[in-house]
């Protein structure tokens, strides 16, 4: 069947200026990825994985590739990011590292944090074993497109045993004026055995832009990564993000994704678990107007004795639409797996919709796994109870919505990001009340 593969023309236009051109393995990686994308085409609802998220509008928006220098007027970090004091800050504008907005001084020894493009320029050989090696991209058209077109992103590497003393705040700013711009940020995150870090991502911006990110996240044996992401893109933005997570034996990953921005957004996480791993993939989504917010996760219990926990809670208002697809695979030898998944959505108005698809695929016999999904309106009984205490209807509704989403935020194991995300949620609820 003939299919649509927009953005191919971008490759011809920008390929000569992409970092690392002329490095044989990287050229090969890019051209392989490009042909994968060309073969697969942009996903359509005919593909099972994209049944509920339609990219037709994205394909037709006429995005052109953001080039270095398109956004030099980014002089400050805009509002809407996570409020974090005392963090290292790495800022990317339209996918490109901004040294002037970043502050990465006094990093611990054996911690490398900076621009991937710079790393490619300095020492491309060191990346050959890291870039595009975390998992199988062959069935992922948008991640393949990213591999073909990636120009920059975060390069983060902790040697064995290094503890990052402060959180790293990765701020991604999208900026488009007349022309709709697209960029394909590539983050490479690697924690050596026994190392620890907290990384907070904030995605914000203005104008019509398309961020098509890929993060490759490798967490070594016994390492701990707290990884929290705020997707608070501008109202005209498209945000697609593929996160490949590999957790080695005894690693701990505490992940949380708060999605409240963008016109259309999909955050996809593919986690591969070693033995005795603790993997927490939690999230919350707040949608209004015509927003479409998709959370798709795949947890691969590839070894025994690991646990995964997944709680996603969302609130949808006006004509917003949500998607949750959560697959848990327990392989034959992954005995004593403990996997739990829960998706709850609160629909505040009749125009909203949630498509939720839990999927457990279990081949081991000695496991504890569960999943659950609920969708509904606020409990009439709870509202009545609050109102009989003198609390007016709108305040009571606000309290119940805040309580509902607050339970998801409680899953965040690190206090400062939890408090900061709560503030983002409170802001959304306040605007809703006033609107």
């Amino acid at each position: 069947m003939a299919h649509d593969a927009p953005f191919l023309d971008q490759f011809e236009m920008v390929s000569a200026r992409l970092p690392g051109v002329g490095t044989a393995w990287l050229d090969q990686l890019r051209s392989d990825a490009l042909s994968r994308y060309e073969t697969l085409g942009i996903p359509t609802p005919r593909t099972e994985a994209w049944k509920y998220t339609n990219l037709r509008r994205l394909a037709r928006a006429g995005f052109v590739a953001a080039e270095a220098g398109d956004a030099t007027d980014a002089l400050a970090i805009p509002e809407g990011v996570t409020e974090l004091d005392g963090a290292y800050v790495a800022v990317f504008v339209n996918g490109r590292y901004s040294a002037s907005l970043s502050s990465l001084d006094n990093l611990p020894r054996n911690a490398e944090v900076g621009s991937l493009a710079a790393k490619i320029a300095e020492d491309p050989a060191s990346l050959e074993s890291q870039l595009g090696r975390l998992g199988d991209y062959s069935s992922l058209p948008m991640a393949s497109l990213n591999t073909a077109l990636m120009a920059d992103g975060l390069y983060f590497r902790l040697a064995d045993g290094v503890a990052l003393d402060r959180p790293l705040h990765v701020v991604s700013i999208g900026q488009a004026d007349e022309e709709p711009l697209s960029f394909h940020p590539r983050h490479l995150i690697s924690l050596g055995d026994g190392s620890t870090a907290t990384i907070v991502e904030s995605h914000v911006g203005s104008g019509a832009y398309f961020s098509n990110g890929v993060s490759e996240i490798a967490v070594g044996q016994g390492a701990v990564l707290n990884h929290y992401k705020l997707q608070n893109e501008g109202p005209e933005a498209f945000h697609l993000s593929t996160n490949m997570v590999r957790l080695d034996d005894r690693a701990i990953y505490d992940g949380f994704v708060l999605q409240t921005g963008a016109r259309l957004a999909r955050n996809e996480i593919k986690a591969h678990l070693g033995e005795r791993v603790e993997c927490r993939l939690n999230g919350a989504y707040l949608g209004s107007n015509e927003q479409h917010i998709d959370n798709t996760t795949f947890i691969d219990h590839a070894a025994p004795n690991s646990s995964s926990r997944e709680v996603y809670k969302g609130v949808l208002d006006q004509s917003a639409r949500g998607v949750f697809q959560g697959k848990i695979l327990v392989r034959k030898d992954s005995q004593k797996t403990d996997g739990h998944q829960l998706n709850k959505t609160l629909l505040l108005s009749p125009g909203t919709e949630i498509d939720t698809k839990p999927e457990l695929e279990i081949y081991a016999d000695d496991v504890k796994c569960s999943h659950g999904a609920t969708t509904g309106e606020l409990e009439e009984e709870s509202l009545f109870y609050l109102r009989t205490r003198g609390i007016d209807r709108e305040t009571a509704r606000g309290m119940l919505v805040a309580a509902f989403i607050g339970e998801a935020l409680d899953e965040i194991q690190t206090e400062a990001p939890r408090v900061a995300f709560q503030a983002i949620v409170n802001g959304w609820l306040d605007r809703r009340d006033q609107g």
Partner: protein
Amino acid sequence: MSLLEIRDLHATVDGKEILKGVDLVMEPGQVHAIMGPNGSGKSTLSYVLSGRDGYEVTSGEVLFDGKDLLSLDADERARSGLFLAFQYPVEIPGVATTTFLKTAINAVRVHRGESALDAMQFLKFVREKAKDLNVNDDMLRRPLNVGFSGGEKKRNEVLQMAVLEPKLAVLDETDSGLDIDALKIVADGVNRLRAADRGMLVITHYQRLLDYIVPDRVHILAGGKIVQSGDKTLALELEEKGYASFVGAEAA
């Protein structure tokens, strides 16, 4: 002026008439008990008075402090001084009991023209009232009613009544699910709140509660109407003879 006047009150739930002409007058400072068998309309009466959606008044009127109660929304009724102690207090995960109490207290206070309490004033005020009811700080910190025992839930209801200082409290089967020790604590709490300017309408199936909260008047509700009223001895008589004789008299 009477505190509460219910005149020929008819109400339906899901199109079915449950209250079929209730009349009742209460003066300030009085405690009235409404007793009745299951299905007599006791809970419906409490929900109609407190303004729950889905309980439709088809005729009759209710004056509260001389004003038309039925034209007010549930939260307006509460701010005007009506309190319903629930038979089954609702569990609300994610809302801390203190947050809930502070929001409620300040909504009622602002309505009465008083200043809202700040965090310090609020804590002092609530702790004082909570002490008498064996409600400790741990309970106050927990999400509202979540994981509370039956006795804790009812003590929490009485605490809410104590801090909201209503003119009229409707106690819907407050005794249900309580053992005798829990019942005493709750009844003591209620008795401490008896006041010359406050009325209480105690709805119960059993006479037992009225040993502890002694009423001025007792009404028997059956088939959606008050079929007999009397003083506290009526409750004892009912206990002895059973509902059948009263309900039977009405049916005949």
